[in-house]
């Protein structure tokens, strides 16, 4: 086991709430109906390849796109397409969803076979067709990261097992339940990209996982476990790279610009299972927790399952939920309806009671500077917030607004409960609008 090379500045120390760390993952089974969105990734949305009345099987591709940055989607069940219609998505825009009524048979699509005997290029193409996106939360198509432009020289793979968000344990459980698969996946990624050295970064509070991988990798010289400081946002891509390799990703640049490839734990293990079975991405490990959930647990859920079914599987709500979050409490997205679906990058579903969900009242900034000390990107949230509130969007560029990773540390520490990161998001969006208006 190695120690982290560097400690990023700022960040916050959060309550862990890892109640489900000892909850073995349970398979949820087949829902009656799934609604599969055509956009579950960063990039262009897919066009549906099926229409109402079509019969589909599990693993069958039901949506794809010709765009470079995109990722196909697959049916997670066998059954009949009951509708193809736009649905409102958290974020306020509509996404086309394919609704499938499951027949409960879970028949596997005939075309599915392990990708054997393929060239590297074909293999990466196969991984693209598996619908794999970064499973850590952002959902960037993995195949693109695996085939960087020739001028980018990758030499280090960092596998992200930091899992710094409170409550979530789906990566941790995968590390304990499937260490062999993760290591196989890492080996496959190294072979595909030619990267000679890999590190698995794990926060120091997950000693079981650190111990397990240290033992398994004792005689493996090119894969090392790195124990990371337990501090949010240690799993942020730029923070993780800095901690493990000492390299700083320049503002506006990608990890590949400093020779680093980052993959999530679950992404690595999916690659291993895909190479063995050829089964596309149709299910996801999800932590279900929060003050309103009766049984906190880790569940393996088919993609497209309505959130309502997942919570029901976990015993339903023990109190009226006031807020449902997809993802962690720091960066997750609040859901407006239980009819929304589990998607590829869903790693947690949290439900909080009304009392915990109540928005706190914003008061005036007392200029304490705690947001400045908490910012892991070394920005001045206090001044970006002030500029945005005054509508002076261009001035925020002076404060490097676009370098913000929206981790929420500033809002978390603010004693005046100001909506700092929200205003930064708003400022970025306004700047994008202004830029596209200029074109």
């Amino acid at each position: 086991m190695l120690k982290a090379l560097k400690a990023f500045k700022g960040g916050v120390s959060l309550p862990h709430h890892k109640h489900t760390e000892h909850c073995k993952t349970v398979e949820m089974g087949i829902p009656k109906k799934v609604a599969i969105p055509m956009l579950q990734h960063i990039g262009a949305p897919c066009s549906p390849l099926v229409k109402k009345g079509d019969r589909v099987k599990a693993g069958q591709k039901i949506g794809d796109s010709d765009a470079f940055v995109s990722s196909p989607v697959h049916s997670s069940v066998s059954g009949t397409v009951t509708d193809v219609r736009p649905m409102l998505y958290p974020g306020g825009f509509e996404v086309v969803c394919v609704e499938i009524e499951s027949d409960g048979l879970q028949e596997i699509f005939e075309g599915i076979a392990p990708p054997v005997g393929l060239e590297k290029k074909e293999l990466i193409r196969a991984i693209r067709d598996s619908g794999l996106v970064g499973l850590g939360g952002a959902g960037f198509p993995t195949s693109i990261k695996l085939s960087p432009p020739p001028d980018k020289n990758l030499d280090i793979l960092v596998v992200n097992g930091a899992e710094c968000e409170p409550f979530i344990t789906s990566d941790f459980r995968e590390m304990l339940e499937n260490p062999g698969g993760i290591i196989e996946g890492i080996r496959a990624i190294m072979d595909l990209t030619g990267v000679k050295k890999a590190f698995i970064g794990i926060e120091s509070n997950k000693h079981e996982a650190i111990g397990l991988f240290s033992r398994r990798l004792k005689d493996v010289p090119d894969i090392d476990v790195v124990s990371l400081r337990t501090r949010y946002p240690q799993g942020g891509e730029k923070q993780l790279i800095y901690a493990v390799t000492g390299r700083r990703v320049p503002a506006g640049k990608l990890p590949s610009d400093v020779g680093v490839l980052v993959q999530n734990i679950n992404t690595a293990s999916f690659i291993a299972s895909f190479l063995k079975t050829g089964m596309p991405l149709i299910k996801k490990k999800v932590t279900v927790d929060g003050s309103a959930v009766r049984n906190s647990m880790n569940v393996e859920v088919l993609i497209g399952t309505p959130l309502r079914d997942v919570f029901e599987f976990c015993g339903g709500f023990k109190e009226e939920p006031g807020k449902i979050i997809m993802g962690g409490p720091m960066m997750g997205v609040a859901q407006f309806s239980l009819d929304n679906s589990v998607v590829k990058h869903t790693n947690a579903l949290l439900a909080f009671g009304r009392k915990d969900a109540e928005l706190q009242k914003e008061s005036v900034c007392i200029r304490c500077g705690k947001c400045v000390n908490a910012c892991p990107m070394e920005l001045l949230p206090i001044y970006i917030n002030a500029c945005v509130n005054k509508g002076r969007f261009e001035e925020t560029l002076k404060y490097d607004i676009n370098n913000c990773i929206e981790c929420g540390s500033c809002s978390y520490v603010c004693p005046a409960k100001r909506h700092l990161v929200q205003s930064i998001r708003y400022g970025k969006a306004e700047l994008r609008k202004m830029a596209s208006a200029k074109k």
Partner: protein
Amino acid sequence: MEYNLIAGSSPHIRSSESTPGIMRDVIIALLPAAAAAIYFFGIRALLVILVTVLSCVASEYAATRIMKKSTTVGDYTAAVTGLLLAFNLPPSIPFWIAAIGGVFAVVVVKQLFGGLGHNFVNPALAARAFLMASWPVAMTTWTQPRVDAVSMATPLGVDAVSSATPLAMLKSGGLSSLPLPDLSSLFFGNVAGCLGETSALALLLGAAYLIARRVITLEIPVAFIATVALMTWIFGGHSLFTGYPLYHILAGGLMLGAFFMATDYTTSPVTFKGKIIMGIGCGLITSIIRLYGGYPEGVSYSILLMNLAAPLIDRYTIPRSFGGEKSNA
């Protein structure tokens, strides 16, 4: 069934820290110094504290009511201002002058400029400067502490003996003008001076609490005190490098100013570099006033002057962000 879900922006959890909580910590941190003031200057010190605190809180309430804003008395900031103002007054100050100071601090300096977070200088210090200009005699009439330096027993009935502050003695006669109070008297607080500045020990206790609770950071106080130490050591004696820095650190309002006044959130920079500049600037101005100026003490004016520079300092010390280009300032 359908639930009424709140779909707010992340983060969905917040720390338990709050503005009133921070101000409560500041009040707790000021209590040892308040106790020392009462111990050394008697019940009158307590009365002065009560007058300024009441005056500030009442002014805050009245001002917000008149301006039809929601009242901000509950955030304790007016109480903190009152406490700090009392700490900057001599024990013998007439109560009505102390009360006017409170009104000036809260109404003129704080509320007229937009209230909490918008005052351009430290309200307590601005009030002190205002009272100093208006009633200079009352503001510089010092009383000898009631405790005998040797026995530490409390002789009753000895009250209001006129005296000079250690810095004033130093100014008029230099180190040779004995009998100067010794260092331990300065450290424990058995000297004439403003209410709150008397005991370095009590102030350090409070400062340690603020630092442990992460209410303040060390940049400003350390830069401030180190600069005063360096300046008074180099230039404070009859020839270069023969000054008496320890005396300058412990005497006067430096401890109070460095830990409790210069670190005031609203009127100090938020960047690391800015805080260092703020501390050094305060230290330089304090030393220059103490060594070459007309007043024996310069802490409060140095902080007021640097308060004015704080927005400018912030603007020119925008740090380079992680992985960012050099700062754009």
